[in-house]
């Protein structure tokens, strides 16, 4: 597979103030449209970190959240942003992708119920309806959380609501949702007058998986180890910049996005403030680092939940930089 596709213009980023040196194009497919979490990439571009490494970043948007892994595996894009359990799932399906570096180190996908409901604790959801986006991973999350809390998960009615997590809960058709992010859905629901209570899966028996990580293909990891290293370095610098200059970085992102879609500043601000602490692990592990234990824990849990049927080698799931 050959590097990146020629871009459709708009997404190609680069400072390009007369740089005579040929920049190497590198492409990444985001997990979703640009938002606060991606400010670290934009900071990398705006502050010239990519250019310093002789790189020019081409940012692509997926049609579906499962597309990034497929496209990275086929080599149509160089990198992708996706979820750690999804990487495990992919490997179980023989899709040759590997985790490069965690970006958000902890789950964002919390179980949420309206604040004014009688769901005080996950086990209260027995006999109730939970909306989720038909991702089997979420079924496992719900099951683990409720059972760990002492409830009977078989008494919960799970409904695939695909696009409409938020309307599911505001319209009262679901008593809780799984699949919502604390940095997005929770923030938006609060803003629109429907505050929710969120239950952290880690506190209810789910391994502390990386919600968002940088992923690449086995092939690229092997053949272009330098590129991978450079990319992580740039991302780390971008992260550090954002950590130090959150307001500025966010303004830059909003400014960029204004040309195509006006993001709401307050939402993204709140989102970033939720995210930043989760991108490092209380200082004990530095940005981007990962461990085989984390992968093993996730794999074990997924196996136990029958999310995967085959054995997945934890060591092969990620690359050590």
């Amino acid at each position, binding site marked *: 597979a050959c590097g990146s596709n020629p871009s459709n213009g708009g997404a190609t980023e680069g400072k390009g103030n007369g740089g005579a040196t040929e920049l190497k194009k590198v492409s990444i497919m985001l997990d979703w449209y640009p938002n606060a979490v991606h400010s670290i990439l934009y900071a990398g571009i705006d502050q010239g970190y990519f250019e310093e490494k002789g790189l020019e970043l081409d940012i692509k948007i997926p049609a*579906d*959240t*499962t597309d990034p*892994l*497929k496209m990275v*595996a*086929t080599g149509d894009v160089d990198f992708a942003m996706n979820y750690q359990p*999804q990487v495990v*799932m*992919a490997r179980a*399906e*023989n*899709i040759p992708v590997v985790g490069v570096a965690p970006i958000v180190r902890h789950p964002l996908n919390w179980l949420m119920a309206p604040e004014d409901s009688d769901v005080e604790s996950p086990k209260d959801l027995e006999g109730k*309806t939970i*909306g989720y*986006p*038909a*991702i*089997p*991973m979420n079924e496992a999350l719900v099951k683990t959380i409720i059972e760990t809390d002492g409830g009977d998960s078989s008494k919960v*009615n*799970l*409904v*695939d*609501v*695909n*696009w*409409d997590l*938020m*309307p*599911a809960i505001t*319209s009262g*058709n679901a008593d809780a949702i799984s699949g919502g992010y604390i940095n997005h859905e929770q923030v938006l629901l609060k803003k629109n007058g429907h505050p929710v209570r969120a239950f952290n899966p880690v506190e209810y028996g789910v391994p502390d998986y990386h919600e968002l990580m940088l992923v690449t293909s086995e092939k690229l990891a092997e053949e272009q180890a330098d590129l991978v290293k450079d990319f992580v370095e740039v991302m780390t610098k971008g992260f550090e910049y954002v950590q130090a200059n959150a307001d500025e970085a966010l303004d830059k992102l909003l400014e960029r996005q204004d040309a195509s879609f006006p993001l709401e500043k307050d939402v993204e601000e709140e989102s970033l403030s939720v995210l930043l602490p989760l991108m490092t692990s209380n200082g004990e592990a530095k940005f981007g680092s990962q461990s085989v234990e984390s992968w093993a824990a996730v794999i074990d849990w997924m196996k136990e939940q029958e*999310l995967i049927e085959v054995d997945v080698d934890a060591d092969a799931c990620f690359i050590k930089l």
Partner: protein
Amino acid sequence: MKNSRLLLIITVAFGLAWEGIVRLLNVPVFILPPPSRIFAALGKHWELLLFTHLPVTLWEVILGLFLSIVIAVGAAMLIHFSEIGERVLYPIVIASQTIPIVALSPILIMWFGYSIWGKVAVTILITFFPIVVGGVDGLRATNQEWVNLMKTMGANSRQIFFKVQIPQALPAFFSGLKVAATASVIGATIGEWLGASAGLGFFSRRASHNLQADLLFATVFLLSIAGFVLFYTIQWIEKKSIPWFYEEKK
């Protein structure tokens, strides 16, 4: 007889070509699985697919298509026979076709919750337009000379409608219906994305999220079969109901 053998041969040839190309070009299984994989997946999960999910979707399709016909025929009549219908209802009907379901889904959920009616509503929304256009254009095709003849016989509008306009509108109506029938399958599939816990649409999303392209395409295969059956059933009914339109003159 000969034709169905030809069809069989070509289907098999098509399947083999697909298998060959996918294998030769090394198209990754997770992007486009070869038929062998799809059938393997189908073989493994056929009970689940055929007895749990297919009936759910089929029921949505049939209910949706049936109501769609009723509503569309009503709308076509209003549009054809009343000025207000043409000036007001037609634009609204057209507008309804330009709204992405995403925009409507919260409203549909508010109204219908996660009952079957939400899915049926989406199916109707996606299928009724071709029938309306077919119906309106079919009614427009009325030969005025026959209407005049009927009038001299003292026919009232109801009689003119049933004995002259309907027979002449049927060919266009059936064209629309065939498009609608085929679309109804995808309509129910999309409808299930509003909120479902069973059905081929639901299942296909799960398969997709699990990166199980073979299962996804096994589902698509069933959806296609359903689409065929619907299309050719309608075409068969069409040939039976308007033989004068099909009869090849010697």
